[in-house]
């Protein structure tokens, strides 16, 4: 054969792929530049940086839930529990012995735990691993359950974790919680981990494991009869999700600066579920977009809580108003837009170009479609 054979990336390189790659690189470069300047304090003030950190962290948490709920089809509501584990482990390992000594005034801390102090990245990693271990232990009894029983059981375990943390006075400082966590998380941390998680999940879903997850989601019986070990794959998905949620919890601890058991009530799992549902079950890009939208909008809607004027009369300040607006929004999405923003699809440059570049053709298409039906 005279033709030269390409191998590897080059073999798969079509013009469209080339363009997509260029665009992706450009977008990533733009984000990196933006982050770099934002870190210098040129573009964003501290408040906006904090919100962006929260957005990215919620994206991480949303992805961890989507891995189990959207990609593997297991309805788990235990995210708050794994976050609690992650947040507490990170904080306990990261705080200095003196800070811990000052915090534990009711009962002294276990000496071993008090003496320990690790750098942030290591604390975060250990937190993820401990969370994954918790997921493994919880998964053993729970993953044998079906559908909504699984939801209740995981929710139950997340509450048990919270009750445990409230009562483990010498380890977690009980209901008082832990304060004064240094704000080491900056945009590099939050966006970096988010990017890693995105890449990891996208890659994972292309491996045989990822395909097995999807097969289990689409039809458990068929998947099992094709030789997929249900328990093994469910457990794998659950443990990975626990790991990622633990990372998210650790980031939250550092961004917020203080943690206590009440922060990790199962209502928190609902917040994350809201992101997953709005973004669309089983879509990475949808989850990320929804996490940014919801977190930013929650901040932006603060004017609802502070009272506002409606032309003639003034609406008084009512605490909690924005959460009502949010829950109504969620109900509307559930009832009328069940597929979420992404419709279960992933972001692609082609779709964006089609959307932006050829409005005329899109209208034409719609008209044709209208005629057909």
């Amino acid at each position, binding site marked *: 054969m005279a033709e030269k054979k390409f191998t590897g990336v080059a073999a798969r390189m079509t013009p469209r792929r080339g363009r997509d790659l260029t665009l992706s690189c450009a977008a990533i470069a733009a984000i990196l530049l933006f982050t770099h300047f934002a870190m210098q304090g040129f573009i964003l003030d501290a408040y906006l940086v904090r919100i962006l950190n929260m957005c990215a962290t919620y994206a991480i948490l949303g992805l961890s839930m989507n891995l189990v709920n959207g990609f593997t089809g297991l*309805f788990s509501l235990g995210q708050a529990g794994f976050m609690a584990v992650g947040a507490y482990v990170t904080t306990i390992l990261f705080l200095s012995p003196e800070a811990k000594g000052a915090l534990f005034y009711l009962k002294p801390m276990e000496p071993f735990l008090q003496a320990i102090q690790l750098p942030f990245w290591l604390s975060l990693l250990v937190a993820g691993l401990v969370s994954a271990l918790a997921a493994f232990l919880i998964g053993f*009894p*729970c993953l*044998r*359950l079906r*559908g*909504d*029983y699984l*939801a*209740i*059981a995981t*929710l*139950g*375990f997340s*509450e*048990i974790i919270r*009750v*445990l943390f*409230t*009562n483990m006075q010498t380890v977690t400082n009980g209901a008082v919680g832990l304060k004064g966590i240094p704000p080491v998380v900056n945009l590099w941390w939050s966006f970096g981990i988010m990017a890693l998680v995105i890449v990891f999940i996208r890659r994972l879903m292309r491996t045989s494991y990822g395909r097995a997850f999807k097969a289990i989601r689409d039809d458990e019986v068929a998947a099992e009869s094709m030789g997929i070990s249900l328990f093994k794959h469910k457990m794998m998905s659950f443990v990975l999700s626990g790991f990622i949620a633990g990372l998210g919890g650790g980031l939250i601890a550092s961004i917020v600066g203080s943690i206590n058991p009440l922060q990790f009530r199962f*209502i928190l799992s*609902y917040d994350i*579920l*809201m992101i997953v*549902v709005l973004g669309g079950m089983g879509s990475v890009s949808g989850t990320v977009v929804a996490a940014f939208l919801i977190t930013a909008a929650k901040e932006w809607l603060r004017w609802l809580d502070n009272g506002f004027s409606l032309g003639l009369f003034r609406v008084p300040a*009512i*605490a*909690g*108003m924005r*959460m*009502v607006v*949010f*829950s*109504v929004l*969620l*109900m509307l999405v*559930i*009832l009328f837009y*069940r597929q979420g923003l992404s419709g279960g699809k992933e972001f692609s440059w082609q779709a964006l170009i089609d959307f932006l570049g050829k409005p005329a053709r899109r209208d034409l298409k719609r008209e044709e479609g209208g005629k057909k039906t």
Partner: protein
Amino acid sequence: MLVNWPMLIQQVVNGLTVGCLYALIAIGYTMVYGILRLINFAHGDIFMMAMYFAFFGITVFLIPWWAVMPLVVVVTTALGVLIEQAAYKPLREAPRISLLISAIGVSYLLENLATVLFTGIPRSFPSVPHFTEMVIVGQVRIQWLGFWVPLIVLALVVGLMFIVHRTKTGMGMRAVSKDMETAKLMGVHINRIIATTFGIGSALAAVGAMLWGMKYPQMQPYVGVMPGLKCFIAAVIGGIGNITGAIIGGILLGLLEILIVYFFPGLSGYKDAFAFIALILILLLKPTGLMGEVVTDKV
């Protein structure tokens, strides 16, 4: 150790009271699950709303307590039916997971709505004469509630059993829970039956909420969450979809909680975890629940 009989009797009555209230709320879960195969996450929040309705009826509108009770039941029933119509009916053909998410959405909405309408400040349920006073028999001190609750619950259960087994609506409920498609073909008005089921469940939750408020007067917008979850667990323990099972499960759970704390006071901090441990155990050992196998009156 010598058994402290008066104390033990007091605790058993206490557990029975809580258990009967759990049973009352668990019936609502089990009936809805029997028909729609849906964990109605909003049930605990309907319970919470009923508590607030009673609170405002008595303290703000100054309606006498005996008039407030039926009023609250009516309003709560209407709320339950409204929720069904707005949030569950449009999803009749949708996958079950959507229904579950919708239920969580409703629960979220009700909690946030309650925070705005009633503020998050903890309030205290008004004390009602003839219920909250103490009776002293020998050394045993018991609230009148200890007698009233089992009686009221018994009366309501008898009434419910009559509806389920002796009326046409009840027959419809049993038919729909067996097989919705066939029931539809046989001319059962599915939507009416489902709405009635939600109505009955909410009415029972309303009664439960008022009695609960007399026993545990602290209330805030999340007050329904824990009882709600525990009552669902009670329904699962008894065998979900089975009314008798829900009653047995509720009473067992109530007694278990109170007596474990009585015998092992060191565990009182973990009280809220018992129910979940019981749930995990029952799901692993006997997933159909105690009464699950004897499928007699699945509603």
